[in-house]
Structures are given as C-alpha cells and as structure tokens.
C-alpha cells in the first residue's frame, strides 16, 4: 500500500490532539488505516506526539492488537473463547492451516490471507466463531472452511 509516513502520522496525531497519553488510540488508527504499524510511520508519530520511540515499540509489542508486520488483505481470526474451544475451534484452525498451507500467525505469500487466533469475541451463542476482517461467521464447521476461503479468494 502506498502511503506517506509524514502525512499519516500528522493526520492521526492531530486527531488525538498530539497528546502523548493518547498514543495507543493513535496506533489503533494507524493500524486500521494501513493494516499494520510500519516503522517509518511510528518514527514520525514519535515526533508529533512527543513519545520516545522506545516507548512506542514497548506498546506495540505489549498489546496483541498491534502488528509490526504486514497482514494479509483478509485477516482470518478464529475465536478461542471457552465455548468456541469446547465446540472445536482448534480443529477449525487446523482446517484453515491445511487449506491455506500456512501456520497460525502467518500470512500467505500472495498477502491475501493471514490466520490468527483471537480472544473471545463475545458471540458465544454462535460458537465456534470465525471473524474475517469485519464479517463474523458462526457456527463454523470444518467442512465449511474451504467454501469460506473460496468466497474471499474470488473477491
């Protein structure tokens, strides 16, 4: 994705009043916009928000929501809440790994899909649940995984 690090940092920092305490919110916005936290943008935002870069990396690596590596166009998150686990979420993860030929936490070579596990998304009535970007699916069965992937692959 094409972006200007200075422009992104300036815009996001301004949105949160350039206040150091809002750095986490700023990082959320960068992640939403670019799908990950590029280093050059983080260096820029460090200047605008007046937060040392070491602190920014501390935050980026502490919180699960942030990623320093680019993610796939479609981020597949398998919910690992208790009900999802009890109703077979680990088998859904293996099915996705088989289907996409990557391990959980990785991204396919064409940058189309990444697979990860996520904390409870709170729709336990639909367990097991899979979230692909903004869309939520449930209950998902092992046998319905290939169809689900195909739906996004052809998009």
């Amino acid at each position, binding site marked *: 994705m094409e972006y200007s690090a200075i422009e992104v940092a300036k815009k996001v920092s301004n949105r949160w009043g350039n206040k*150091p*305490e*809002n*750095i*986490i*919110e700023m*990082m*959320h916005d960068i992640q939403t916009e670019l799908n990950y936290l590029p280093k050059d943008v983080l260096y820029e935002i460090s200047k605008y928000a007046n*937060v040392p870069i070491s*602190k920014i990396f*501390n*935050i980026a690596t*502490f*919180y*699960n*929501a*942030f990623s320093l590596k680019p993610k796939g166009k479609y981020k597949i998150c398998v919910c*690992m*809440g*208790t*009900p*999802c*686990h*009890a*109703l077979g979420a680990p*088998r859904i993860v*293996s*099915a996705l790994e*088989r289907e996409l030929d990557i391990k959980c936490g990785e991204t396919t070579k064409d940058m189309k899909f990444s697979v990860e596990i*996520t*904390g*409870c*998304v*709170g*729709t*336990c*009535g*639909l*367990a097991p649940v899979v979230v692909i970007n*903004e*869309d*939520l*699916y*449930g209950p998902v069965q*092992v*046998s319905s995984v290939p169809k689900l992937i195909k739906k996004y692959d052809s998009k």
Partner: protein
Amino acid sequence: MKNYRLQLMVCAGTACVSNHSLEIKEALEKEIQNHHIENEAQVVQTGCNGFCGAGPILVVQPDGIFYQLLKVTDVKLIVEEHLIKGRPVKKLLYTPPEEKTPIPKLSDIPFFAEQTLIALRNRGLIDPESIDDYIARGGYKALAKVLTSMTPDEVLNEIKISGLRGRGGGGFPTGVKWETCKKAHGDEKYVICNADEGDPGAFMDRSIIEGDPHSVIEGMIIGAYAIENVKQGYIYVRMEYPLAIKRFQIAINQAREYGLLGKNIFDKGFDFDIEIRRGAGAFVCGESTALMASIEGKPGEPRAKYIHTVEKGLWDKPTCLNNVETWANVPQIILRGGKWFASIGTGDVSEDPWGGSKGTKVFSLAGKVNNTGLVEVPMGITLRDIIFRIGGGIRDGKKFKAVQTGGPSGGFIPESLIDLPVDYEELTKVGSMMGSGGMVVTDEENCIVDMAKYFLAFTQAESCGKCIPCREGTKRMLDILEKITAGHGTEEDLILLEELSNAVVESSLCALGGSAPNPVLTSLKYFRDEYEAHVKGKTCPAHICRQLNVYKIDEKVCLEIGHGCDVCKKYCPDGAIIGERKKVHYIDPAKCGKCGACYDVCNFNAIYIE
C-alpha cells in the same frame, strides 16, 4: 408520536447481525411497503435479546410473538400471514427441544420466563441508538431525581443500602468503594467504566452496551455526582467489540446534545463528560491498575495495590472504577430504592456490606447447553435452575459433566455441587468465583484436563510478565499439563502441579496470576480420576487429547460408503496412510503422528478412535 398497530422488533446484537438480521429488517420494511401497511406496522432495531443461539430474532409487539432462526426468505410469509391475516407463522416459532408444540409468546418461553430483569430491563424493547427510546422507558429519570432532589450523600447512602457489589467479578461493595473515593483527598477525581470484558465465554457487558448504552452512561453520571469533584469519566472498551464502541459513541453524542453530559447539567452547576478509550487486545487490562496504565498511554502492566486506586488511580488521582453491569444497575436502584434492590438475593447487608449478594446477576450461558445466551437471574438461584430450567439442559441428550464459572480465573463445578446457590461467597467456597459471569457448560465429550490446559494457556499467554510467579509459574504449570495430555505424565507431576498452583496463587502480584491456577486446582479436586486416566492409563476418556488417541479406519465404511476416496491420504502430514483410490485404506501406527487430520477430513466417518 405515531401509534402503530404492530411493532416489529428486529434484534441487532452482534450475533444476530452476523446472521443477516439487518438484511431481514430491510426486507421487512420493503415487504410492508409492498402491502401498503406502513402506517400500521413499524420496524425497530433493538439491542441483543440474549437468546443468541436462536438468532436472528424478531419479536412482534404488542403480543410478544417470538420468531427465531429467521432467513430473508421467511419475511414474505410473516408479513402476509401474521401482519395481514393475524396468524403467527407456526414453523418459525420457538419449539423447546424434544417437544412438538411451539411456544408463540416470548414471555412464555422458559428461557425468558424464569429471568428477573434489572440491568437488562430494556433489552429487546428499545432502539439502542435512540436516546428518545431510552427516555420513553424512564431513562434519565433517576439522574433528574438525583440532581434535583438528592444530595451526593443521600445518593451514596442509597447505594450502600442496596448492597450492590462489583459485578466485574471481585464483588467489592460498590457503596464502600464510592465512599472511600469520596473521602480521598484531591479536588480532581475520575470515574471509569471497565468494559474490557476479556473473560472468554463472557458477553454480558457487550450485550448491555449494545442493547442499552445509556443506562451505563446514566449510572456513571450519578456516580460522578455522588463521589463529587469528578469532571471526567472514561469508558475503556476492548477493541474486539466494534459495535459496542460505535453504540457508546452514539449514546455519548446524544447525551451531550441533550445536555446530559457536558457543562452545567440540568442547570445545577454540575459538569461531567465521558470519553471512550479502546483497549488493544490485552486481557490483563481488565485489571484496574493495568487498565488505568493503558488509559495513560502506557503498556497495561498492573502494580501492587498497597495504595488502592480509589486513593491513587488514574494519573495518581482518586479514581472509582466499576464494571458495565454495576453502572447499569445504579439508575434502577435510585429510582426504585436501595431497599427494593436489597430485597432480592441472599444474606443481609444492613450491617456488613460483605454479608450477602443482592440484586440480580447477568450470566452468559454458553457451551453445551440447548439455550445459549444471556440470562439475568436473582442471586441465590441454583446452578441447576440456570442450566436445566433456563438453559434447557444439555445438548443432544448428553451427560452433564461440569460448569465452569468465572472464566479463566474461576473453576469447574461438578455435578455433585449443582444445587449450589449463586452467591459470591458460596462460589468462592468451592474454589470457583462469580467472576464477570461467564458460565460455560461442558458435557461428557469434553476433557477436563484439556479444558484446564486451555484456560492456563490463555492466562499464561496473557500474563504481562511483570512478576515472576505468574510469568514463570504458569509457564511451568502449562508444561506439566502439556506433558500429561501428550501421554508422558507421571503421578509425581500431579503433586508438583498442585504445589506449583498454590505457590502461584499466593505470590502473584495481581488477580490475574492469583486466580490463574483456579481451573487447575478445581479440576484436580473434583476430577482427579480424569487426570489419573491420562497419567496412569494413558487414555483420554473424552477422546480429546489427540496424542492419546489411536486412530483406526473402518474398512467396511471406507470401501462401501466412501469408495476409497483417498482424501485422508492427501491430508496426512506423516505419510501414515496406506491405500489407493477405490481401495481400502489403512493407518500405519508406526508412522502415525496422531494429529487427527484424517479424522477431521473424512467425509464418511470411516475413521474412528479406538
């Protein structure tokens, strides 16, 4: 306001939306227009009804006819039959499992009939994105009462009389917390709503926010007034709940527009405003000190609480933090009186604030029960009533094994204790806890050792790493559990596991580490035989721990039904499957890595576990 003959309440909670309830709403509106009855029937989107397993849900008021599991294609039938001819569509109504006659009315369905609604009183009845709907149901009346006719001390007293205790899990008396914060020195104080609902299997807070965000905001304003010197409040919501964040933001904007937030509220010279902060996927941020660190823009690491947050919290100022459900109870207590609230529940709180559990508690019932969803019940109800009467029993007629309450900090409660009343003290006594209210039911097909490992893996991964007992202790405990589930466990491991658990409980810095071993301790206490089966017999009774399973192929099924489809061979990572298309396949036990991939992919159930 216009009066309609019929109101169609479409559930727009996350679960129903993901199953296309918004498309159903659109289709309903279109169909109603096609039949020119738009002056008689109105379509309203509501918050979560709580009966998430039955979604998408439509309730036709004023009769309260309940439709479940709807599809866009059902809309035409409902409009033509029910709205025009007045005949509810039988096949779309709720039918209890193992029965044939449907129950048309929501209020007659056991799942709803057995509940007492306080925090969830508006669920399914209002549009959560409309402040007018909330006001029409008596919303902000409590705030008006507080600001026009009560002193802050009177408000505080009412909360104390009610016996309300923290609904986030700790059960700390809310009145005591407010009072300590009120007395703390400082002319700048904060209130926080903890909506970082991280417990897996818990979604009470999400439903309250998505269904009735104003009740939380009203509670916070009342709290700020009672504590005094509070000008700013924060709502800390986890980013996994995008719809909740959106609804909160809408609600805050509307409240500002109506002058209920901001400067000089109700012309009483009282200023208060609320901002939202998004969590970033760290479970530990549900802990109060970690949450405050996160709001300050730091990594969410907890600190030792020699000085409580009510004295020195956010930016070292006195801070009162309560859970979503606690705040949502406040307006009702003010309106109906603390005495009324205290009349529900167990024990006596007039002398000792810890003397009983008052009011109701919202639980999210999930796992292997027939009716999954959100239930609000009076304190003191038994677990049996919740699981079997409201929850409708175990799915597929399987045998109940245990109920896990309190999320990863709670414990397993076995069948022998199922008549236990739900109460803060009673649950703690058996090694579990109230927690935020997750209630996950497991049946005979769940392996308790695997479940304990699951919870521990969760807390271990979420440990912030600040203190050693939690960082290292949970890791070593997890190693032992992994060893056991892989079939290499010894009897000494069980003793070591117990010792280590107790050490972690006693020496961890915050509640995350202090309660992380609870699932292990309770499962060891009540289900030791299952651990022993893994350790001594090297078998997993529920066939969940794959390394202990022996996979076999039923030759007859493979050949006659599957015609030797060869799919298992394609997916076997170890090359352990012998055979070719249209012929019988076999598993070579010497090569089999026991990953279970063949078992998952076989379309004919030809592979079984011995």
